[in-house]
Protein backbone atom coordinates (compact mmCIF):
# COMPACT_ATOMS: atom_id res chain seq x y z
CA UNK A 1 0.00 0.00 0.00
CA UNK A 2 1.19 3.51 -0.86
CA UNK A 3 0.14 6.21 1.54
CA UNK A 4 0.51 9.98 1.18
CA UNK A 5 0.19 12.13 4.31
CA UNK A 6 -0.31 15.89 3.92
CA UNK A 7 1.28 17.94 6.69
CA UNK A 8 1.31 21.61 7.61
CA UNK A 9 3.60 23.74 9.72
CA UNK A 10 1.64 25.58 12.45
CA UNK A 11 2.41 27.59 15.60
CA UNK A 12 2.69 25.50 18.77
CA UNK A 13 -0.68 25.16 20.56
CA UNK A 14 0.49 27.27 23.53
CA UNK A 15 1.44 30.23 21.28
CA UNK A 16 0.10 33.68 22.00
CA UNK A 17 -1.14 34.98 18.67
CA UNK A 18 -0.13 38.48 17.51
CA UNK A 19 0.07 40.32 14.19
CA UNK A 20 2.41 42.87 12.57
CA UNK A 21 2.44 45.24 9.57
CA UNK A 22 -0.88 46.84 10.45
CA UNK A 23 -2.44 43.51 11.41
CA UNK A 24 -1.84 42.03 7.97
CA UNK A 25 0.85 39.47 8.88
CA UNK A 26 1.13 36.79 11.54
CA UNK A 27 3.92 37.70 13.96
CA UNK A 28 6.32 34.75 13.86
CA UNK A 29 8.64 36.36 16.39
CA UNK A 30 9.27 33.90 19.25
CA UNK A 31 6.89 31.33 17.80
CA UNK A 32 7.80 27.67 17.93
CA UNK A 33 6.49 25.78 14.91
CA UNK A 34 5.20 22.20 15.03
CA UNK A 35 3.56 19.72 12.68
CA UNK A 36 -0.19 20.42 12.75
CA UNK A 37 -1.43 18.10 15.55
CA UNK A 38 -4.23 16.51 13.48
CA UNK A 39 -1.76 15.75 10.68
CA UNK A 40 0.87 14.30 13.03
CA UNK A 41 -1.01 12.59 15.87
CA UNK A 42 -3.79 11.05 13.83
CA UNK A 43 -3.14 11.02 10.05
CA UNK A 44 0.58 10.24 10.06
CA UNK A 45 0.56 7.76 12.94
CA UNK A 46 -2.35 5.74 11.51
CA UNK A 47 -0.65 5.62 8.08
CA UNK A 48 2.53 4.34 9.78
CA UNK A 49 0.61 1.70 11.74
CA UNK A 50 -1.01 0.42 8.54
CA UNK A 51 2.34 0.37 6.75
CA UNK A 52 3.86 -1.58 9.65
CA UNK A 53 1.14 -4.22 9.55
CA UNK A 54 0.48 -4.41 5.79
CA UNK A 55 3.74 -3.26 4.20
CA UNK A 56 4.16 -0.39 1.78
CA UNK A 57 5.40 3.16 2.10
CA UNK A 58 4.47 6.45 3.73
CA UNK A 59 5.33 9.69 1.92
CA UNK A 60 4.71 13.04 3.59
CA UNK A 61 4.04 16.15 1.54
CA UNK A 62 3.86 19.84 2.34
CA UNK A 63 3.57 23.05 0.34
CA UNK A 64 5.99 25.71 1.54
CA UNK A 65 9.47 27.17 1.66
CA UNK A 66 12.72 25.90 3.14
CA UNK A 67 11.59 27.07 6.59
CA UNK A 68 9.17 24.11 6.61
CA UNK A 69 11.94 21.52 6.52
CA UNK A 70 12.48 21.17 10.31
CA UNK A 71 8.86 20.04 10.84
CA UNK A 72 9.21 17.70 7.86
CA UNK A 73 12.28 16.11 9.50
CA UNK A 74 10.15 15.63 12.62
CA UNK A 75 7.59 13.70 10.58
CA UNK A 76 10.40 11.62 9.08
CA UNK A 77 11.74 10.95 12.59
CA UNK A 78 8.35 9.60 13.62
CA UNK A 79 8.67 7.07 10.81
CA UNK A 80 7.70 8.38 7.34
CA UNK A 81 9.88 6.97 4.54
CA UNK A 82 10.31 10.05 2.41
CA UNK A 83 9.24 13.66 2.22
CA UNK A 84 8.15 15.92 -0.62
CA UNK A 85 8.18 19.69 -0.36
CA UNK A 86 6.45 21.58 -3.12
CA UNK A 87 8.45 24.75 -3.33
CA UNK A 88 5.66 27.32 -3.31
CA UNK A 89 4.20 29.86 -0.94
CA UNK A 90 1.16 28.28 0.73
CA UNK A 91 -1.16 30.99 -0.60
CA UNK A 92 -4.71 29.76 0.00
CA UNK A 93 -6.39 26.38 0.52
CA UNK A 94 -7.44 25.98 -3.12
CA UNK A 95 -3.91 26.78 -4.27
CA UNK A 96 -2.39 24.29 -1.78
CA UNK A 97 -4.85 21.55 -2.78
CA UNK A 98 -4.00 22.08 -6.46
CA UNK A 99 -0.28 21.66 -5.69
CA UNK A 100 -0.80 18.43 -3.72
CA UNK A 101 -3.24 16.94 -6.24
CA UNK A 102 -0.99 17.85 -9.20
CA UNK A 103 1.87 15.99 -7.53
CA UNK A 104 -0.25 12.98 -6.45
CA UNK A 105 -2.36 12.43 -9.58
CA UNK A 106 -0.05 10.02 -11.43
CA UNK A 107 1.55 8.41 -8.36
CA UNK A 108 -1.14 5.80 -7.55
CA UNK A 109 -1.44 6.50 -3.84
CA UNK A 110 -3.99 4.16 -2.23
CA UNK A 111 -4.96 6.57 0.53
CA UNK A 112 -4.22 10.28 0.93
CA UNK A 113 -4.32 11.15 4.64
CA UNK A 114 -4.88 14.68 5.97
CA UNK A 115 -5.60 16.10 9.41
CA UNK A 116 -9.19 17.36 9.76
CA UNK A 117 -8.03 21.00 9.68
CA UNK A 118 -5.00 23.08 10.67
CA UNK A 119 -5.07 24.80 14.03
CA UNK A 120 -3.85 27.94 12.22
CA UNK A 121 -6.57 28.73 9.68
CA UNK A 122 -9.18 26.09 10.64
CA UNK A 123 -10.31 25.98 7.01
CA UNK A 124 -10.72 22.21 6.63
CA UNK A 125 -10.64 22.82 2.86
CA UNK A 126 -7.54 21.07 1.52
CA UNK A 127 -8.61 17.42 2.11
CA UNK A 128 -11.94 17.63 0.26
CA UNK A 129 -10.47 19.82 -2.49
CA UNK A 130 -7.64 17.31 -3.09
CA UNK A 131 -10.27 14.56 -3.35
CA UNK A 132 -12.19 16.62 -5.90
CA UNK A 133 -9.10 17.26 -8.05
CA UNK A 134 -8.26 13.54 -7.93
CA UNK A 135 -11.94 12.63 -8.54
CA UNK A 136 -12.02 10.12 -5.67
CA UNK A 137 -14.28 9.73 -2.60
CA UNK A 138 -13.56 11.78 0.52
CA UNK A 139 -14.22 10.66 4.08
CA UNK A 140 -14.20 13.52 6.58
CA UNK A 141 -13.50 13.40 10.31
CA UNK A 142 -12.40 9.77 10.38
CA UNK A 143 -11.81 8.39 13.88
CA UNK A 144 -11.04 4.74 13.00
CA UNK A 145 -9.69 3.10 9.84
CA UNK A 146 -9.14 -0.55 9.02
CA UNK A 147 -8.04 -2.03 5.72
CA UNK A 148 -8.82 -5.46 4.30
CA UNK A 149 -7.23 -5.70 0.87
CA UNK A 150 -8.56 -2.68 -1.01
CA UNK A 151 -11.65 -2.39 1.19
CA UNK A 152 -11.53 0.21 3.94
CA UNK A 153 -13.89 0.32 6.91
CA UNK A 154 -13.99 3.75 8.51
CA UNK A 155 -15.76 5.29 11.49
CA UNK A 156 -16.36 8.98 11.20
CA UNK A 157 -18.02 11.79 13.08
CA UNK A 158 -21.17 12.81 11.23
CA UNK A 159 -24.24 14.97 11.83
CA UNK A 160 -25.78 13.78 15.09
CA UNK A 161 -23.47 10.85 15.71
CA UNK A 162 -21.05 8.37 14.25
CA UNK A 163 -21.21 6.59 10.89
CA UNK A 164 -19.44 3.40 9.88
CA UNK A 165 -18.73 3.42 6.14
CA UNK A 166 -17.10 1.08 3.68
CA UNK A 167 -15.36 1.94 0.40
CA UNK A 168 -12.59 0.88 -1.95
CA UNK A 169 -9.22 2.56 -2.33
CA UNK A 170 -8.19 5.03 -3.65
CA UNK A 171 -9.68 7.81 -1.53
CA UNK A 172 -8.81 10.84 0.60
CA UNK A 173 -9.59 11.03 4.31
CA UNK A 174 -9.30 13.66 7.02
CA UNK A 175 -8.32 12.31 10.43
CA UNK A 176 -9.78 13.39 13.77
CA UNK A 177 -9.15 12.46 17.37
CA UNK A 178 -9.40 8.74 18.11
CA UNK A 179 -7.67 7.58 14.93
CA UNK A 180 -4.31 6.88 16.62
CA UNK A 181 -2.16 7.81 19.60
CA UNK A 182 0.59 10.43 19.39
CA UNK A 183 4.11 8.97 18.92
CA UNK A 184 7.23 10.58 20.33
CA UNK A 185 10.21 10.13 17.98
CA UNK A 186 13.12 8.20 19.51
CA UNK A 187 16.85 8.86 19.01
CA UNK A 188 17.12 6.18 16.33
CA UNK A 189 14.26 7.77 14.40
CA UNK A 190 15.77 11.24 14.73
CA UNK A 191 19.15 10.00 13.44
CA UNK A 192 17.54 8.08 10.57
CA UNK A 193 15.47 11.13 9.57
CA UNK A 194 18.64 13.10 8.76
CA UNK A 195 19.42 10.88 5.78
CA UNK A 196 15.90 10.10 4.53
CA UNK A 197 15.07 11.68 1.15
CA UNK A 198 13.48 15.14 1.22
CA UNK A 199 12.60 15.93 -2.38
CA UNK A 200 11.92 19.49 -3.44
CA UNK A 201 9.47 19.78 -6.33
CA UNK A 202 8.88 23.05 -8.25
CA UNK A 203 5.45 24.67 -7.91
CA UNK A 204 2.66 23.74 -10.32
CA UNK A 205 0.56 26.39 -12.07
CA UNK A 206 -2.45 27.31 -9.97
CA UNK A 207 -4.70 30.29 -9.44
CA UNK A 208 -5.15 32.17 -6.20
CA UNK A 209 -8.82 32.35 -5.15
CA UNK A 210 -8.79 34.15 -1.79
CA UNK A 211 -6.57 36.65 0.03
CA UNK A 212 -6.21 37.38 3.72
CA UNK A 213 -6.79 41.14 3.95
CA UNK A 214 -6.21 41.55 7.69
CA UNK A 215 -6.36 39.86 11.08
CA UNK A 216 -8.13 40.80 14.29
CA UNK A 217 -7.74 39.56 17.83
CA UNK A 218 -10.93 39.10 19.86
CA UNK A 219 -11.83 42.17 21.90
CA UNK A 220 -11.02 41.73 25.57
CA UNK A 221 -13.79 40.58 27.88
CA UNK A 222 -15.21 42.95 30.44
CA UNK A 223 -14.20 42.21 34.02
CA UNK A 224 -15.53 38.93 35.41
CA UNK A 225 -18.42 39.44 37.81
CA UNK A 226 -18.02 37.23 40.87
CA UNK A 227 -21.05 35.65 42.47
CA UNK A 228 -21.43 34.22 45.96
CA UNK A 229 -21.25 30.40 45.67
CA UNK A 230 -24.18 30.19 48.12
CA UNK A 231 -26.38 32.38 45.92
CA UNK A 232 -27.09 30.59 42.64
CA UNK A 233 -30.48 32.32 42.40
CA UNK A 234 -28.52 35.52 41.69
CA UNK A 235 -26.59 33.82 38.85
CA UNK A 236 -29.77 32.48 37.27
CA UNK A 237 -31.37 35.91 37.55
CA UNK A 238 -28.32 37.59 35.92
CA UNK A 239 -28.24 35.04 33.12
CA UNK A 240 -31.91 35.73 32.48
CA UNK A 241 -32.21 39.49 32.99
CA UNK A 242 -28.72 40.83 32.23
CA UNK A 243 -27.06 38.37 29.84
CA UNK A 244 -30.43 37.23 28.41
CA UNK A 245 -29.14 33.77 27.49
CA UNK A 246 -31.74 31.72 29.38
Amino acid sequence: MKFLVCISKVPDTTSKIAFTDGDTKFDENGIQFIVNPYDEWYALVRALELKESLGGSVTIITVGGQADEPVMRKALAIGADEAVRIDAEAKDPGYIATQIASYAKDKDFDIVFCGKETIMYNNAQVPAAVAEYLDVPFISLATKLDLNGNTATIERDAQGGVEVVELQTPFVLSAAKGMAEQRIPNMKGIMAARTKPLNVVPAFDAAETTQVVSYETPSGKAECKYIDPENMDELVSLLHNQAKVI
Partner: protein
Amino acid sequence: MSVLVFADAKNGKVIKSAFEAVSYGAKVGGGSCIAVTYGDVSNADELGAYGASEVVVAKSIADNDSQVLSALVADVAGQKGANTIIFSQDFTGKAIAPRVATKLSAGLVSGAVDYPTADFTIKKTAFSGKAFANVKITTDNRVISVLPNSVGAENTGGSATVSDYAGDVGVSKVKIIESKSAASDGSVPLPEAELVVSAGRGLKGPENWGIVEDLANAMGATTACSRPVADIGWRPHHEHVGQTGVAIRPNLYIAAGISGAIQHLAGVNGSKVIVVINTDAEAPFFKAADYGIVGDAFEVLPRLTEAYKKFKASN
Protein backbone atom coordinates in the same frame (compact mmCIF):
# COMPACT_ATOMS: atom_id res chain seq x y z
CA MET B 1 -26.78 38.32 -7.43
CA SER B 2 -28.18 34.82 -7.41
CA VAL B 3 -27.49 32.87 -4.24
CA LEU B 4 -27.84 29.10 -3.74
CA VAL B 5 -27.83 27.56 -0.25
CA PHE B 6 -27.15 23.90 0.53
CA ALA B 7 -29.57 22.78 3.26
CA ASP B 8 -28.41 19.57 4.93
CA ALA B 9 -31.02 17.02 6.02
CA LYS B 10 -30.99 14.09 8.40
CA ASN B 11 -33.70 11.53 9.23
CA GLY B 12 -36.23 13.14 6.91
CA LYS B 13 -35.81 16.70 8.24
CA VAL B 14 -33.83 19.74 7.14
CA ILE B 15 -31.49 20.30 10.11
CA LYS B 16 -31.19 23.34 12.36
CA SER B 17 -27.94 24.74 10.93
CA ALA B 18 -29.51 24.77 7.44
CA PHE B 19 -32.08 27.37 8.54
CA GLU B 20 -29.27 29.67 9.64
CA ALA B 21 -27.46 29.11 6.31
CA VAL B 22 -30.66 30.01 4.41
CA SER B 23 -31.12 33.18 6.49
CA TYR B 24 -27.50 34.10 5.68
CA GLY B 25 -28.02 33.34 1.99
CA ALA B 26 -31.17 35.45 1.83
CA LYS B 27 -29.32 38.43 3.37
CA VAL B 28 -26.46 38.06 0.85
CA GLY B 29 -28.98 37.63 -1.98
CA GLY B 30 -30.76 40.88 -1.13
CA GLY B 31 -33.83 39.29 0.45
CA SER B 32 -34.12 35.85 -1.05
CA CYS B 33 -32.18 32.80 -2.19
CA ILE B 34 -32.65 29.35 -3.66
CA ALA B 35 -32.09 26.31 -1.44
CA VAL B 36 -31.18 22.75 -2.40
CA THR B 37 -31.69 19.74 -0.16
CA TYR B 38 -31.96 15.97 -0.58
CA GLY B 39 -33.62 12.78 0.57
CA ASP B 40 -37.09 12.16 1.87
CA VAL B 41 -37.47 15.52 3.64
CA SER B 42 -40.82 16.50 5.10
CA ASN B 43 -40.09 20.13 6.03
CA ALA B 44 -38.41 21.59 2.90
CA ASP B 45 -41.17 24.22 2.61
CA GLU B 46 -40.30 25.61 6.07
CA LEU B 47 -37.11 27.09 4.55
CA GLY B 48 -39.41 29.66 2.90
CA ALA B 49 -39.95 31.42 6.21
CA TYR B 50 -36.18 31.95 6.46
CA GLY B 51 -35.78 33.55 3.04
CA ALA B 52 -35.74 30.76 0.45
CA SER B 53 -37.99 31.64 -2.49
CA GLU B 54 -37.48 28.22 -4.05
CA VAL B 55 -36.36 24.84 -2.66
CA VAL B 56 -35.05 22.11 -4.96
CA VAL B 57 -35.25 18.60 -3.47
CA ALA B 58 -33.17 15.71 -4.84
CA LYS B 59 -35.34 12.88 -3.52
CA SER B 60 -33.28 10.08 -5.02
CA ILE B 61 -30.20 10.94 -2.95
CA ALA B 62 -30.33 9.16 0.40
CA ASP B 63 -26.81 9.53 1.82
CA ASN B 64 -24.47 12.39 2.67
CA ASP B 65 -21.68 11.38 0.24
CA SER B 66 -19.49 14.35 -0.69
CA GLN B 67 -19.02 13.36 -4.35
CA VAL B 68 -22.74 12.99 -5.04
CA LEU B 69 -23.84 16.05 -3.06
CA SER B 70 -21.16 18.32 -4.54
CA ALA B 71 -22.22 17.25 -8.03
CA LEU B 72 -25.83 18.08 -7.07
CA VAL B 73 -25.01 21.53 -5.73
CA ALA B 74 -22.79 22.43 -8.70
CA ASP B 75 -25.46 21.24 -11.14
CA VAL B 76 -28.26 23.21 -9.47
CA ALA B 77 -25.97 26.27 -9.32
CA GLY B 78 -25.50 25.95 -13.09
CA GLN B 79 -29.22 25.48 -13.78
CA LYS B 80 -30.19 28.48 -11.66
CA GLY B 81 -27.28 30.70 -12.67
CA ALA B 82 -26.14 31.06 -9.06
CA ASN B 83 -22.64 32.46 -8.58
CA THR B 84 -22.63 32.55 -4.77
CA ILE B 85 -23.08 29.30 -2.84
CA ILE B 86 -23.66 29.16 0.91
CA PHE B 87 -23.07 26.20 3.25
CA SER B 88 -23.18 25.71 6.98
CA GLN B 89 -19.71 24.80 8.27
CA ASP B 90 -21.14 21.66 9.88
CA PHE B 91 -20.30 17.99 9.35
CA THR B 92 -21.72 17.69 5.84
CA GLY B 93 -20.91 21.24 4.75
CA LYS B 94 -17.23 20.84 5.60
CA ALA B 95 -17.01 17.81 3.30
CA ILE B 96 -18.90 19.29 0.34
CA ALA B 97 -18.11 23.02 0.21
CA PRO B 98 -14.43 22.57 -0.85
CA ARG B 99 -15.47 20.12 -3.60
CA VAL B 100 -18.09 22.57 -4.91
CA ALA B 101 -15.57 25.44 -4.78
CA THR B 102 -13.13 23.31 -6.79
CA LYS B 103 -15.77 22.41 -9.38
CA LEU B 104 -16.76 26.07 -9.83
CA SER B 105 -13.16 27.46 -9.65
CA ALA B 106 -14.48 29.53 -6.77
CA GLY B 107 -12.75 31.00 -3.75
CA LEU B 108 -14.11 29.57 -0.49
CA VAL B 109 -14.19 31.22 2.92
CA SER B 110 -14.94 28.58 5.53
CA GLY B 111 -16.04 29.31 9.07
CA ALA B 112 -17.54 32.74 8.28
CA VAL B 113 -18.87 34.55 11.36
CA ASP B 114 -20.29 37.62 9.60
CA TYR B 115 -21.79 38.78 6.29
CA PRO B 116 -19.57 39.70 3.32
CA THR B 117 -18.64 43.34 2.69
CA ALA B 118 -19.31 44.93 -0.72
CA ASP B 119 -15.98 43.62 -2.07
CA PHE B 120 -16.62 40.13 -0.64
CA THR B 121 -14.30 40.29 2.31
CA ILE B 122 -15.56 37.98 5.03
CA LYS B 123 -14.62 37.65 8.69
CA LYS B 124 -13.79 34.12 9.77
CA THR B 125 -12.26 32.44 12.81
CA ALA B 126 -8.57 31.59 12.68
CA PHE B 127 -5.90 30.25 15.01
CA SER B 128 -8.53 28.01 16.58
CA GLY B 129 -10.53 30.86 18.02
CA LYS B 130 -7.55 32.96 19.15
CA ALA B 131 -8.05 35.42 16.26
CA PHE B 132 -10.15 36.35 13.23
CA ALA B 133 -9.03 36.71 9.63
CA ASN B 134 -10.73 38.96 7.07
CA VAL B 135 -10.52 37.01 3.84
CA LYS B 136 -11.41 38.38 0.41
CA ILE B 137 -12.74 36.13 -2.34
CA THR B 138 -11.12 37.17 -5.62
CA THR B 139 -12.98 34.89 -8.05
CA ASP B 140 -16.25 35.44 -9.96
CA ASN B 141 -17.91 32.44 -8.34
CA ARG B 142 -17.86 32.41 -4.54
CA VAL B 143 -18.50 29.87 -1.82
CA ILE B 144 -19.00 30.76 1.85
CA SER B 145 -19.55 28.32 4.68
CA VAL B 146 -21.01 29.85 7.80
CA LEU B 147 -19.99 28.78 11.29
CA PRO B 148 -23.08 27.46 13.16
CA ASN B 149 -24.54 29.89 15.75
CA SER B 150 -22.75 32.90 14.26
CA VAL B 151 -25.54 34.95 12.65
CA GLY B 152 -28.61 33.01 13.79
CA ALA B 153 -31.69 31.92 11.84
CA GLU B 154 -34.27 34.64 11.24
CA ASN B 155 -37.89 33.85 10.51
CA THR B 156 -39.05 36.55 8.09
CA GLY B 157 -42.35 34.86 7.30
CA GLY B 158 -42.00 34.18 3.57
CA SER B 159 -42.86 31.05 1.65
CA ALA B 160 -41.10 28.88 -0.91
CA THR B 161 -42.08 26.85 -3.94
CA VAL B 162 -40.76 23.31 -3.67
CA SER B 163 -39.67 21.46 -6.80
CA ASP B 164 -38.03 18.10 -7.54
CA TYR B 165 -34.49 17.94 -8.84
CA ALA B 166 -34.46 16.54 -12.36
CA GLY B 167 -30.82 15.73 -13.15
CA ASP B 168 -28.64 12.70 -12.49
CA VAL B 169 -25.61 13.00 -10.23
CA GLY B 170 -24.39 9.40 -10.15
CA VAL B 171 -24.15 6.90 -7.34
CA SER B 172 -22.14 7.07 -4.11
CA LYS B 173 -18.99 4.93 -3.88
CA VAL B 174 -19.27 5.05 -0.09
CA LYS B 175 -21.54 2.54 1.62
CA ILE B 176 -22.93 3.51 5.03
CA ILE B 177 -22.95 0.31 7.09
CA GLU B 178 -24.11 1.72 10.37
CA SER B 179 -25.31 5.04 11.78
CA LYS B 180 -24.97 5.47 15.53
CA SER B 181 -26.47 8.40 17.37
CA ALA B 182 -23.82 9.97 19.64
CA ALA B 183 -26.25 11.75 21.89
CA SER B 184 -28.46 8.84 22.92
CA ASP B 185 -30.42 11.25 25.13
CA GLY B 186 -31.43 13.23 22.05
CA SER B 187 -29.53 16.38 23.06
CA VAL B 188 -28.30 18.85 20.43
CA PRO B 189 -24.83 18.07 18.93
CA LEU B 190 -22.09 20.27 20.47
CA PRO B 191 -21.28 22.46 17.44
CA GLU B 192 -24.94 23.54 17.24
CA ALA B 193 -25.73 23.69 20.95
CA GLU B 194 -26.91 26.99 22.44
CA LEU B 195 -26.37 25.91 26.05
CA VAL B 196 -23.36 23.84 27.10
CA VAL B 197 -22.38 22.52 30.54
CA SER B 198 -18.77 21.38 30.69
CA ALA B 199 -16.49 19.92 33.35
CA GLY B 200 -12.87 18.96 33.81
CA ARG B 201 -10.44 17.24 36.15
CA GLY B 202 -11.87 19.16 39.10
CA LEU B 203 -14.72 16.64 39.09
CA LYS B 204 -12.19 14.03 40.32
CA GLY B 205 -13.66 11.00 38.52
CA PRO B 206 -16.16 9.84 35.89
CA GLU B 207 -18.53 8.59 38.61
CA ASN B 208 -19.13 12.21 39.65
CA TRP B 209 -20.58 13.39 36.32
CA GLY B 210 -24.14 12.98 37.57
CA ILE B 211 -24.18 16.55 38.91
CA VAL B 212 -23.04 17.85 35.49
CA GLU B 213 -25.68 15.84 33.66
CA ASP B 214 -28.38 16.91 36.15
CA LEU B 215 -27.74 20.58 35.35
CA ALA B 216 -27.54 19.88 31.60
CA ASN B 217 -30.81 17.92 31.68
CA ALA B 218 -32.58 20.62 33.68
CA MET B 219 -31.46 23.31 31.20
CA GLY B 220 -31.77 21.25 28.01
CA ALA B 221 -28.03 21.80 27.55
CA THR B 222 -25.39 19.61 25.90
CA THR B 223 -22.51 18.25 28.00
CA ALA B 224 -18.85 18.80 27.14
CA CYS B 225 -15.47 18.26 28.77
CA SER B 226 -11.82 19.35 28.78
CA ARG B 227 -9.06 17.48 26.95
CA PRO B 228 -7.44 15.69 29.96
CA VAL B 229 -10.81 14.23 30.89
CA ALA B 230 -11.36 12.84 27.38
CA ASP B 231 -7.76 11.59 27.18
CA ILE B 232 -8.01 9.53 30.38
CA GLY B 233 -11.32 8.12 29.21
CA TRP B 234 -13.64 9.67 31.79
CA ARG B 235 -15.76 11.09 28.97
CA PRO B 236 -16.14 10.24 25.26
CA HIS B 237 -13.84 12.01 22.77
CA HIS B 238 -16.69 13.74 20.97
CA GLU B 239 -17.34 15.79 24.14
CA HIS B 240 -13.83 17.30 24.13
CA VAL B 241 -14.00 21.03 23.42
CA GLY B 242 -10.83 23.03 22.80
CA GLN B 243 -8.17 23.73 20.23
CA THR B 244 -7.70 20.08 19.25
CA GLY B 245 -11.29 19.07 19.97
CA VAL B 246 -14.58 20.67 18.96
CA ALA B 247 -14.77 24.47 18.74
CA ILE B 248 -18.12 25.73 19.99
CA ARG B 249 -20.02 29.04 20.06
CA PRO B 250 -23.00 28.54 22.36
CA ASN B 251 -24.97 31.38 23.94
CA LEU B 252 -23.99 30.09 27.37
CA TYR B 253 -20.97 28.00 28.38
CA ILE B 254 -20.80 26.82 31.99
CA ALA B 255 -17.41 25.34 32.95
CA ALA B 256 -16.87 23.54 36.26
CA GLY B 257 -13.49 22.33 37.47
CA ILE B 258 -11.65 23.47 34.31
CA SER B 259 -8.64 25.73 34.88
CA GLY B 260 -8.83 27.32 31.41
CA ALA B 261 -5.58 26.51 29.61
CA ILE B 262 -5.03 28.56 26.44
CA GLN B 263 -5.88 25.51 24.29
CA HIS B 264 -9.24 25.09 26.04
CA LEU B 265 -10.07 28.80 25.78
CA ALA B 266 -9.37 28.70 22.04
CA GLY B 267 -12.24 26.26 21.56
CA VAL B 268 -14.80 28.11 23.68
CA ASN B 269 -14.08 31.84 23.48
CA GLY B 270 -16.69 32.24 20.75
CA SER B 271 -19.29 31.62 23.49
CA LYS B 272 -21.51 34.65 24.13
CA VAL B 273 -21.52 34.22 27.91
CA ILE B 274 -19.05 32.16 29.98
CA VAL B 275 -19.67 31.06 33.59
CA VAL B 276 -16.66 29.60 35.42
CA ILE B 277 -16.88 27.56 38.61
CA ASN B 278 -13.54 26.74 40.23
CA THR B 279 -12.15 26.31 43.75
CA ASP B 280 -8.96 28.09 42.68
CA ALA B 281 -9.52 31.86 42.56
CA GLU B 282 -6.32 32.15 40.49
CA ALA B 283 -7.55 29.82 37.72
CA PRO B 284 -6.80 31.56 34.37
CA PHE B 285 -10.32 30.80 33.13
CA PHE B 286 -11.74 33.59 35.35
CA LYS B 287 -10.02 36.14 33.06
CA ALA B 288 -12.17 34.92 30.17
CA ALA B 289 -15.35 34.57 32.24
CA ASP B 290 -18.37 36.86 32.35
CA TYR B 291 -19.52 35.38 35.66
CA GLY B 292 -17.24 33.63 38.12
CA ILE B 293 -17.97 31.49 41.14
CA VAL B 294 -15.05 30.65 43.42
CA GLY B 295 -16.39 27.50 45.00
CA ASP B 296 -16.58 23.74 44.98
CA ALA B 297 -18.33 22.32 41.90
CA PHE B 298 -19.72 19.51 44.08
CA GLU B 299 -21.74 22.09 46.02
CA VAL B 300 -22.24 24.79 43.39
CA LEU B 301 -23.55 22.63 40.51
CA PRO B 302 -26.44 21.02 42.48
CA ARG B 303 -27.31 24.44 43.91
CA LEU B 304 -27.34 25.92 40.39
CA THR B 305 -29.54 23.05 39.16
CA GLU B 306 -32.06 23.74 41.94
CA ALA B 307 -31.96 27.49 41.28
CA TYR B 308 -32.53 26.92 37.57
CA LYS B 309 -35.48 24.56 38.22
CA LYS B 310 -37.03 27.14 40.56
CA PHE B 311 -36.58 29.86 37.90
CA LYS B 312 -38.06 27.61 35.21
CA ALA B 313 -41.08 26.76 37.35
CA SER B 314 -41.93 30.45 37.84
CA ASN B 315 -41.26 31.64 34.26
